[in-house]
């Protein structure tokens, strides 16, 4: 039982529009805060690729033009950052990960997303398929800005937002789960905001 914080009343109780949409411990912001562990990489589109690897081998790779030629979707999603902010009804332009994985033959249960700058994050393949995850290249109708992960980032809105790897350059398909960057620094391996899985052991 949590002690009452004397004199604390709070003033951000959910509005009717937010009811049921804000996970425990989160608050709604209209800003778009930026969080990353290091400098923002600036990747030229000419050298950009998105690569699916397995057992060290490249099994499929798309250039920027290849990727942009794929069917794109307009995705509206609520996003939840482990540092406590949630942002509702964010609008993205994106290619479904289903569309990408449909072009490769695999039965791997896990994936490790890898990014420019060395960032990685791990996800079960079951969480990035079935219309749950995208490769996002646009935000609110404009190209995705570098500080928000552009030219392209993962978008996996049902997990804490660190799983939506910025500056993503591909997926390594794995037979066994392998923790990514923040997962090795004490953050939760799976990261379900509705179960408040912020840190290891939550």
């Amino acid at each position: 039982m949590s002690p009452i914080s004397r004199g604390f009343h709070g003033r951000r109780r959910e509005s009717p529009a937010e009811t049921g949409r804000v996970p425990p411990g989160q608050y709604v912001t209209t800003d778009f805060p930026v969080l990353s562990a290091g400098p923002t990489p600036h990747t030229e589109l000419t050298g950009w690729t998105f690569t699916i690897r397995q057992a060290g081998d490249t099994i499929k790779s798309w250039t920027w033009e290849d990727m942009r030629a794929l069917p794109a979707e307009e995705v509206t999603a609520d996003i939840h950052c482990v540092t406590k902010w949630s942002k509702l009804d964010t609008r993205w332009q994106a290619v479904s990960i289903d569309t990408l994985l449909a072009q490769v033959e695999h039965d791997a249960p896990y994936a490790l997303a890898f990014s420019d700058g060395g960032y990685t994050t791990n996800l079960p393949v079951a969480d990035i398929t079935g219309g749950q995850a995208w490769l996002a290249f646009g935000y609110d109708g404009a190209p995705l800005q570098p500080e928000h992960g552009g030219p392209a980032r993962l978008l996996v809105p049902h997990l804490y937002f660190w799983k939506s790897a910025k500056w993503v350059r591909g997926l390594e398909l794995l037979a066994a789960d392998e923790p990514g960057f923040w997962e090795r620094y004490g953050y939760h391996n799976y990261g379900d905001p509705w179960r408040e899985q912020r840190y290891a052991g939550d």
Partner: protein
Amino acid sequence: MAGTAVRGRLTWQVATVGSVSDETASVRTLELDVPGWAGHQAGQHLDVRLTADDGYVAERSYSIASAPDEPVMITVERLADGEVSPYLTEEVRPGDDFEIRGPIGGYFVWPWQDPDSPLLLLAGGSGVVPFRSILRHRAKIGSTVPARLLYSARSLPDVIYHAELATPRDDVEVIYTLTRQQPAGWTGHSGRVTDALLGEVAWPPGQHPIAYVCGPTAFVESVAAGLVGLGYPPDRVKTERYGGVGGP
């Protein structure tokens, strides 16, 4: 790179407010009594959870302002539209309880790998908070690694830890730049951190320095990019946005 040892589950612990001290007109440091605190590394943060009498809860993250062997302290800046920060900076009194859990974050910590690397700390506003922990720790362990702090604040009265940073208790160089208002006769730097100022202050990349950048997003983006432009390898530039917002 290897992660630090992952501890067991982080549980909520009751923290009792000990002393409170005002750092500026809108910034306050709280010393917390946390029985059973597991200890922390310099640069880590913690989560605070406040509970209203109707059960409503609000959580926020704050950088730890004290060295690893000191009582847990947090330094909180009151945000105009804040919910938790006005409570922590205006309402809370010694003897009050709230919950915390931590420490959190194993990346924005010092020492890091090569402990002899010259240390470059770049703070924007309340982004200086984790650097107090780092600098106190550096002094306490008797580290002699060269250390510089470049601190960008709106004005002199907005400088947090001013007295402590002004004390020549060790060999840390503190360089200020005041962005909005400078006192009469100010001989320090003025305006935002430019690449030229960064070039003046930053250890040459050849000395294999390690840089920590903490502050508002625009500050961090510009300073981190400036360091990379000077030749700092990106993996020697650790960033954190705002003193109170850590991790991913």
